[in-house]
């Protein structure tokens, strides 16, 4: 299975009935494809919409209905529109149950860096800092390693997104949580051993007595 799909399917299992969910760009966007049809969740697009639906059929797109990347989306029945102050009031005020974001680095204490590589990539933080500071649960969805380098690090070398630790990291190799503020291996991806995870993880990982395989 495609690593991105493994991640997206596993993250989708974290969603609960009635949750308000914000999905970042990239792998997080894929999560919407794997929500069981009997689970009703609300997806927020931070440019001002709750109730985002799939990409509209050809010829049905409206130029004034887009996602945060400016791409055409649809709105489900029961959708609502609001201005940006309200959108970030929802985010900062803890009304978003789950935010799923991409990451550049997550460290052993759950701190996330995902908005800047000094001197190289300075796109701006957009809504990421508010989402990590404000959402009830923060889930990072990312590849475990990039170019052979672990993205789960002892300490972030890139600028932090927030002083608030994330709740869960889901990669193509593992699910990592932070009980008592310490990176802990909660699950391994199908066919991946604990040893394989440890081999490509820079951060020290606590290993509980049982580490089940991801159910996706």
């Amino acid at each position, binding site marked *: 299975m495609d690593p991105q799909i493994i991640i997206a399917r596993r993250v989708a299992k974290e969603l609960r009935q009635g949750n308000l969910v914000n999905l970042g760009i990239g792998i997080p966007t894929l999560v919407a494809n794997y929500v069981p049809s009997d689970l009703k969740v609300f997806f927020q697009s931070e440019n001002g919409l709750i109730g985002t639906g799939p990409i509209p059929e050809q010829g049905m797109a409206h130029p004034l209905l887009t996602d945060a990347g400016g791409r055409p989306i649809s709105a489900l029945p029961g959708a609502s529109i609001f201005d940006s102050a309200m959108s970030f009031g929802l985010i900062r005020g803890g009304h978003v149950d789950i935010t799923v974001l991409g990451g550049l680095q997550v460290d052993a204490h759950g701190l996330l860096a995902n908005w800047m590589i000094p001197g190289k990539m300075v796109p701006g933080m957009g809504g990421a800092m508010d989402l990590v500071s*404000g959402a009830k649960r923060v889930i990072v969805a990312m590849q475990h390693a990039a170019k052979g380098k672990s993205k789960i690090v002892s300490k972030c070398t890139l600028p932090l997104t927030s002083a608030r630790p994330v709740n869960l990291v889901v990669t193509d190799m593992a699910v990592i949580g932070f009980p008592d503020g310490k990176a802990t291996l909660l699950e391994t991806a199908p066919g991946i051993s604990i040893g394989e995870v440890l081999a490509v993880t820079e951060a020290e990982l606590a290993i509980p007595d049982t580490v089940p395989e991801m159910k996706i």
Partner: protein
Amino acid sequence: MKAVSVEEAVAMIPSGASVMVGGFMAVGTPERLLDELVRQNKTGLSLICNDAATPGKGVGKLFDATLVSKLTATHIGLNPKAQQQMLGNQISVDLVPQGTFVERIRAGGCGLGGVLTPTGVGTLVAEGKRQIEVDGKPFLLETAIRAQFALIHAFLADYLGNLAYALTARNFNPIMAMAADTVIVVAEHIVPVGVIAPDHVVTPAPLVDYIIANG
């Protein structure tokens, strides 16, 4: 409120002015005003806009024409020209978290002294800013933002200046319409008074100074 031509409206904006522009990735942006800013070659603008859009679209046109000298935004990653101009020090860029960005503009429009936000505490964003503890929790004091001009896109405007917005084109427009000395609006449709129900007006008429006339 006064109806004016797009040429008259932009003629009021001097080079070097501070200008807020509504829109999110060019959705909900008053394109006609941006085209005219380029045509009248208004340079040295202090631009306040969520993002830099993309070349050729929305405020992206201002970067194409190198009219911007200062930018306050939350994200410019999808406009390589804006990035180049930033890295080449042709424009100074202040990158602000999006929730902080909109709340600072709201504070400017609502007469508040600033914003106390948890966002950015313990990050690069906190550098040089006051941190205020309230009930033991740290917040950044982020100052209010206002501009000389707000360029607003609405879906409906009535003859008095009441505005309603459509779908995700609402975004920053109603907030910016409160935070500038002069508010100039491009509406997709100009309609008679009463067409917009009072409960559906988002920006009340007294906030609007100019509406770009049809034709």
